[in-house]
């Protein structure tokens, strides 16, 4: 580039000198070679300009959209962005692992709110997947649950597909658990218990209490069956 500039400066300087010393123009004969050289130069320079135009940044000032109202986010937008993101990178793996841990904490809290597990039992219930009927959710949040066939298949498609599959099922299962919890009465400041009469009761015992007892009984029965199977073995 510097050489081209030097040639250009020299040519211009020579041109000025020729204006004063006309005789110097005679050094160059307007022969075919000279004219062809000038033509080649013009063509090369023209092509350079054309190439610059091709890659040039065409700018225009943006005016924005002041007619639109300010939009606020929906709670969970950031999670959706993570869930739907495709690909495989170190950052995405880290974020997915953190999200998985977060989802597990939410699951434990939801089960505590549902009230059929004691504080010490919640973590074990999530580990063994006994908190839900959904095998995918049980596998995704648990640690002792083998992956179901659907998850194995998605693992072949990529970890992002497997992650998405697990999250969707886990969130659905948590929604169901949360719906159970919302069916439970929650003592308010006055100790009042909603829906403690009418349809909320079976005999003198509220339905949610019966539900909790049934679930706890079913778990104990399952545990006893497992223990019996071990003994037989």
């Amino acid at each position: 580039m510097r050489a081209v500039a030097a040639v250009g400066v020299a040519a211009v300087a020579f041109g000025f000198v020729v204006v004063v010393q006309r005789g110097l123009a005679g050094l160059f004969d307007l022969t075919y070679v000279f004219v062809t050289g000038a033509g080649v130069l013009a063509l090369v320079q023209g092509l350079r300009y054309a190439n610059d135009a091709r890659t040039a940044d065409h700018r225009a000032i943006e005016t924005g959209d002041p007619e639109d109202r300010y939009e606020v986010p929906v709670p969970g937008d950031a999670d959706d962005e993570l869930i739907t993101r495709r690909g495989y990178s170190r950052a995405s793996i880290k974020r997915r692992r953190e999200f998985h841990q977060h989802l597990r904490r939410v699951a434990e809290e939801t089960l505590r709110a549902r009230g059929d597990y004691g504080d010490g039992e919640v973590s074990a219930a999530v580990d063994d997947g006994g908190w839900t009927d959904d095998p995918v959710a049980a596998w995704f949040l648990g640690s002792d649950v083998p992956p179901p066939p659907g998850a194995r298949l998605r693992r072949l498609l990529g970890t992002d597909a497997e992650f998405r599959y697990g999250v969707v099922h886990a969130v659905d299962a948590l929604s169901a658990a949360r719906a159970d919890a919302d069916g439970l009465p929650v003592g308010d400041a006055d100790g009042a218990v909603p829906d403690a009469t009418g349809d909320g009761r079976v005999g003198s015992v509220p339905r949610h209490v019966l539900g909790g007892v049934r679930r706890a009984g079913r778990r104990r029965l399952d545990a006893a069956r497992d223990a019996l199977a071990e003994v037989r073995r």
Partner: protein
Amino acid sequence: MTDGAAGGREPADGSTGANGRNVDPLERIRPRGVVPTGRWTGMAALALVPVGLGVLLRHPPLVLVGALGVAFAGYARGDTAPDLDVTIERELSDPTPDPGDEVTVTLRIRNDGDGVLPDLRAVDGVPAALATDDPARLGTALRPGRTATFSYRVTAIRGAHEWDPVHVLARNPSGSRERDARIDAEGATTLRCAPELEATASLPLRGLTTVYSGRVPTDVGGAGIEFHSTREYRHGDPAKRVNWARYARTGELSTLEFREERAATVVVCIDAREGAYLAPDPESPNAVERSVEAAAQAVPALLDSGDRVGVAAFAPGDCRLDPGVGDDHAARARELLATHPSLAPTPSDERFLPTTWVRRFRRWLPADAQVLFCTPLPDDYAATVARRLDAYGHAVTVISPDPTADDTPGHRLAGIERANRVSRLRSAGIRVLDWGEESLATELERADARWSR
């Protein structure tokens, strides 16, 4: 020649976004003033390539074609950006409308310069909280001394809405250069919409009261309506409170005691942190809007029943109204709820330190004050604040507008987390009104029935 900058009409802070609306961050660093568009870049090639080819091919007409390119290149390079010397006036059909009213905004742009503005574009800085279906922009050519007018309509919502300066662009005829300026309009720049405070049917309060009589039943025996106990007659007890039935039966004088009803001091606290600006969809009012609406219904209801009411915002800025009573106090509360910047319909950019705020709020809060905390519970910290205030002896009631949606896994998960927060607060003994899609009055009636059992 005075453009916006030279004429001193640029906004002092140099803000570029339309009232903080979601804008491309690159726009903030784009240069102001004259901007070459690059539209004619490479025009020299149109001159040089035919000349070069004409020489090489020994074809004189091609060399003449090159002359055409020289003319174009000269036109593009010689054309300068037009001087932008305009005056803009803005007029609002009603600067203090009621919520929901349509307000017509009219802009007049006059070319005060000596030259023609061949391509003038003006985009008004509509406040971010206001929306319009009409275009708030104009594209025209303007001769010296002439005025162009355009108008659009906005629907008023609560708040003091300030217009941004008008974004004006002027291009030269070839479009090779643009001049860009933000020009403050003369005339109306603020629309103030203050809704009337409308009381709900009743607002259930907790037992923390003052010594003044009111409507909150207490566990103290005395004058009132609901029976509390009987005690031995004391000289001076009013005759209407003597238990005459017992006197007739046993001949002993005794006095009836009723639950004393006393007034409460209530501070309505609105969570207006940036994280509380949430909505289930773009059409719905955001959670801060709904919280302010709840406060606007609670404040007059409490004042009507003789309670002392204060207002505060859990948000950047010092938004506090000391507890008080009376019509003047109600007017101050109305003004604060309607127009205080901390409760604006769009979030503030100010830095906010929540722990410092809680410490200061506690110092400011009267010892016998209850807290009505309006928050969508967007995070665990909001629940922590409610529990902490309750633990300090300020009976807390949470009114929580629900901003969650359930159309995607992420949205459903956010809903579950919020429901868990509600459960946690309730199990800590704090009343929570989970405000869904029904009206607040309906939800309050339902909650009142539940809480009074």
